[in-house]
């Protein structure tokens, strides 16, 4: 059941510009977009640049925009997209372009280093281990499913349209911060920086990040909104503020 389909792929040129190039390609049953890119790479354009690793939706390397939708190429089956007109594949738009489908995502790695690291309480047992109930770690485990594909960063309008990369850490790192803040063993306080450096207030809950998350993490509802609530409780609740001032210091 193989047939010919045209793939319209963004190719950069030597001057830093670029254009879409059409690649008519034979496709067959069960293929995903990444298979097509590999086929074109092997047969028509040896130098076509793209990132990939696991080919199973576990590493988050092959993020791209397919017909304008941020997706993992390895998990996008051809039978889920219309093939009667050219399929466009282009790099993520929120990050500087490197070559073809590869973008410069280094900003994400820099952002992470600025968030205070995990700081556990003393171990509960002499062998250095802790006791935690499964129910108490479920939420954190949801956040730790993140594969760092950065599709949420790509689709977030605060980054994509308003370029607030210096003031806002984006959904990925709000999820990361939430995982630390809600970790039953963690003792660190990240609320002041959440309000300031992380810019949690920039998020206006349009939930685009949640929609594109390939791991189906409820980014907005489970991570961002609770963080916003904690910040509000800590900084803007007058009674709470008064209590903190007046309570006896231990």
């Amino acid at each position, binding site marked *: 059941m193989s047939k010919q389909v045209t793939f319209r792929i963004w190719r950069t040129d030597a001057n830093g510009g670029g254009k879409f190039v059409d690649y008519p390609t034979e496709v067959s049953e069960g293929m995903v977009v990444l298979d097509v890119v590999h086929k074109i790479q092997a047969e028509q354009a040896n130098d076509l640049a793209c990132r990939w*690793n696991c080919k199973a939706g576990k590493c988050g390397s092959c993020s791209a925009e397919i017909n304008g939708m941020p997706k993992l190429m390895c998990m996008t089956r051809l039978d889920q997209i219309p093939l009667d007109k050219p399929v466009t594949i282009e790099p993520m738009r929120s990050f500087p372009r490197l070559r073809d489908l590869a973008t410069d995502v280094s900003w994400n790695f820099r952002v992470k280093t600025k968030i205070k690291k995990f700081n556990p309480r003393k171990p509960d047992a002499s062998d250095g281990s802790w*006791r935690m109930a499964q129910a108490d770690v479920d939420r954190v*485990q949801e956040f730790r499913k993140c594969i760092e594909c950065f599709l949420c960063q790509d689709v977030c309008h605060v980054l994509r349209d308003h370029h607030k990369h210096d003031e806002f850490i984006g959904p990925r790192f709000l999820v990361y911060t939430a995982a630390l803040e809600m970790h039953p063993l963690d003792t660190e306080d990240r609320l002041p920086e959440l309000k300031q450096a992380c810019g949690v207030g920039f998020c206006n809950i349009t939930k685009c990040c949640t929609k594109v998350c390939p791991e189906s993490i409820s980014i907005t509802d489970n991570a961002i909104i609770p963080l916003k609530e904690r910040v509000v409780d800590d900084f803007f609740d007058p009674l709470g503020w008064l209590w903190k001032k007046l309570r006896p210091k231990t």
Partner: protein
Amino acid sequence: MTNYESFEYDVLVIGAGGAGLRAAIEASAAGVKVGLVCKSLLGKAHTVMAEGGMAAAMGNVDDRDNWRVHFADTMRGGQYVNNWRMAELHAKEAPARVHELEAWGAVFDRTPDGKILQRNFGGHKYPRLAHVGDRTGLELIRTLQDHGIHQGITVHMEYTIVTLLKDGDRVIGAFGYDRERGRFKIFRAKAVVLATGGLGRAYRITTNSWEGTGDGVSLAYHAGAELRDMEFIQFHPTGMIWPPSVRGLLVTEAVRGDGGILKNKEGRRFMFDDIPDLYKSQTATDPEEGWRYVMGDKNARRPPELLTRDHVARCILREVKAGRGSPHGGVFLDIAWIKEKMPSAPEYIKRKLPSMYHQFMQLASLDITREPMEIGPTTHYLMGGIRVDGDTQATNIPGLFAAGECAGGLHGANRLGGNSLSDLIVFGKRAGEFAAKYAKENSAGKVNDAQLEEASRYALEPFEREGSPEGPYQVQHDLQGMMQDLVGIVRRQEEMARALDGLKQLWGRANKVAVASNREYNPGWHTALDLNHLLTVSEAITRSALDRKESRGGHFREDFPKKDPEAQKYNTVVWQGKDGAMQLRREPIPEMAAELKQVIEEMK
């Protein structure tokens, strides 16, 4: 002469999967300056694909477990050609390494009393694998990554190493390029740790990503290091086989650990048909006992689906050859059947195996809570690798260390599932510790300009071959096909001899491939340079497999189908001779410590 950008470190770690990250963290903690080089972005290494868990005898689920049982299991699984010292250290140190991950933020699944939960896996006598659903590798690599970025390690992402630099006999750094721009870089280092993982890309059907091209094994070999046990490749019994584009993708052994069974097209549970003597006393006699084991009955024995991977893979091939296979040439792996046993089976499956559920749903439109999966063997893991000292992970080349999959010894002829992630953290730590110690005791070496010039000439050659008949992908494709067909799961003398001839021709073609365009992020160029590594390791596999005239673990010879007790006394070692040709010897296995012998006797 050369004005390449240059970096200076005490310890340079090449590879940022579990072993490389753990080594870098340890070296850094020892107070030396550490550089970490990786081919992909940080956190994307193949470790991320590990699913089932990491083996550590913590005894959280069954308190009869301890390091002795784990040691005996590892040796039995490896069919006694393991580096027994590594198996001992691994069994003793794994629990502490797992607890350390928890201290760095890892969140494992929990037992009812709040401890780290442990699951059943093939060849492990007791439930032993600490895990997070079926995404344990992600948890491991992310924990190490998030801890490591605060340790003052300099990370060079998307860099490829072309060659190790030498000063006399000693390794004193590495030479490579950044993939983004293709600019050459010099890394001077007092000690180098290789942690580059495996070589599955030498085969057509594999669980490995593009990175698994045997770089570290080949770099070490060309720098004079010895390789061991290269004939022992693990073919994981359960890879996806349909649709064709996902062929080879890993289906975790945890499916079987959590109750999944193997059936042929007649619906027969064929694993009960052939149980090796070594495992008879530990294996269930009927499906009922097997199920009780899965449900945690301490008096029940393991179902035969949890026999070692080498054996399960061969049983699957047997069924397929006998015409009892599935429509696409595999067999059926069925977890949906447990709905007969528990009313909430679909929820149980989705909770225990979320990414498997997801993977089959999205890639094969198959609901594993309702239907059986079609699976078949896939190239998964290199048991052999760079020959190292068990305590220090030092190679025979001064200044060069190796850890994780690219180092050989721990797993012998067959690795138990779950022993890989624990290998990474136990021996990654040791490699980092002893590399740092070496770096403190030695001064920097002197880089040889001639070597740099030769390496850069070699690396750029593919751009200058005008009028070449082919690009790198065709050669890679043909090599993968040949290794799959001639040096795969079932091996024969004459086929492997043909493979050696085939390798000669492929070397010839590889030396002629041309690449187009420029050096910036050019996958064609990268693939052309990978060919050298793939061909080197393929030759090592083939020569070692030809020499071992018996069947043991991952190495199965149709012309020598039995185990030879004499062949249990040596490891196959290969190295590069002075004339450039590959040399081979049978290295006697040192006498095992008396205490360990006794452990093995007791556990029989």
